[in-house]
């Protein structure tokens, strides 16, 4: 499949939802509406772009972008798809059901940029500790300016930080990871750590 064909098909299928499309060096550059990112991705996946090279989040100060770099192992055309989403509530649909690799990339985008992926099977922080406050790759992120001690499994500080930031947090479903160590009766908790 040629890059031009891809562009034509996507334009024809989604019309206004896909803005500014062009082809450079065999790569299709597309910008899509964040609300329809999943449909566009599904269409591209169906066209044979079965390989998601990279998924990155970008903070443009007035909006967020989720950038998908797609390619195929059968033809040389590549796609560089940017999905925009508003800055105050960055939220797109997860594509983890199309490409399994998106799972970790989306977790990273959530972790570092705070973009939410609806329908993600397991949206947790991945690189930062569970009890980290804020999303450091945002352009307006200011660090605390001092060393913040974090507990290995984050249970102590998590409660405090959530209280401080007023994030309502239902207790159900939030199980501290430390309990995972308790498979062997009480005294074993943390024994293998």
């Amino acid at each position, binding site marked *: 499949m040629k890059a031009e064909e891809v562009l034509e098909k996507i334009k024809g299928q989604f019309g206004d939802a896909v803005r500014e499309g062009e082809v450079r060096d065999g790569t299709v550059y597309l910008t899509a509406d964040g609300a329809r990112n999943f449909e566009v991705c599904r269409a591209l996946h169906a066209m044979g772009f079965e390989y998601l090279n*990279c998924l990155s989040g970008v903070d443009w100060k007035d909006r967020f972008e989720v950038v998908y770099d797609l390619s195929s192992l059968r033809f040389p055309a590549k796609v560089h798809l940017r999905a925009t989403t508003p800055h105050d509530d960055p939220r797109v649909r997860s594509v983890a059901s199309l*490409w399994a690799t998106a799972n970790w990339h989306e977790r990273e985008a959530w972790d570092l940029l705070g973009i939410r992926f609806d329908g993600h099977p397991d949206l947790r922080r991945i690189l930062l500790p569970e009890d980290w406050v804020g999303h450091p790759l945002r352009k307006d992120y200011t660090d605390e300016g001092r060393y913040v001690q974090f507990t290995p499994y984050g249970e102590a500080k998590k409660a405090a930080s959530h209280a401080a930031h007023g*994030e309502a947090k239902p207790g159900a479903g939030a199980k501290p*990871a430390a309990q995972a*160590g308790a498979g062997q009766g009480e005294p074993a908790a943390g024994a293998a750590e």
Partner: protein
Amino acid sequence: MDAQAATALPQGIEFERGETAEEMYVNMGPQHPSTHGVLRLLLKLDGELIKDCIPYIGYLHRCHEKIGENRNYIQIIPYTDRLDYLASMYNNWSYVKAVEALMGVKPPERAEYMRVILGELQRIASHLIWMGTFGLDIGNFTIFMYCFREREMILDLFESVSGQRLNYAFFRIGGMPMDFPETFYNDADGFLEWFKGRLPEYDRVMTDNIIFQRRVQGVGILSEEDAVGYACSGPVLRGSGIRWDLRKNDPYGIYDRFEFDVPAGDRGDVWDRYMVRRLEMEESARIVEQALAQIPPGEIMAKVPKTIKPPAGQVYSRVESPRGELGHFIISDGTPNPYRYRVRSPAYVNLSALPAMLKGCLVADAVAVLGSIDIVLGEIDR
């Protein structure tokens, strides 16, 4: 959503107690001799059988991308060394290639040859480390020292070229900073000659050993669909039977001038991944030989301004590192600092396929399978 996001454990997995009395949870790592760094695997075991596995990463996170946004384009080069510290040349290469693509600069031919020579030697060195540590994982201690002996020689070569043994920072945007020293060609030839004699030695200790074969064959199978779905790359993808190598399939630089094969497995088990790397060492040696024979004299640096200010735009550029597709995604806004700087690290993506490989394995296999992915935590955690 937020509540779930903050949960320490994935949904649907009740980690307080096993479903049956036999189940037990074991944390492998972050301090464990076989996690190759600070990786934590939460294993759900039934006796020795692995029922589930959840990798926890980030213990080595040092805001590489945030640092990148606050440095100018040249200052980033030494930082990239610290990503995959076992194959620093490739990090340099991938980053430099991305910036060159943004600026539209083409490095001179001799610089390209130098990059290929250094890169392929680095691939051999990286695979050697992998082979040695994989031997440790399997319980074969001797191969480790053999591999390190040869790796030392490569590091000596690199030291003679760049003055560094691990973090070279030797690539420049637009070319290379220094030419090879006079002694390099002889030393490199001598090394290749020696190295080819050592490969059968590795085979005798590892490849042909029946215990080793039994340990790795049919273990940790990753199907073709999974390998593509998880976007695995490098030896992991090729081990699963997909003959996909960026040097062949999306040739960059001057790779179309060399003759080499892309080894691939057929079953996607640990053995296939082992054999792919084992054979790749030979192919890399072949490439270095050809490049040493062909290398033309001439300039090693293209004309680039003192202050690098690429025009606004974005680029995703990739190279085939020893671990797979190493990509750099850079957005420039025309200032001396990149606006967004993202690393697509192959080990990060390959590691995400680990749970798929581990289903139904034993604890001992977990070590072998993890070893076969060839992870470097510096690159995963960034």
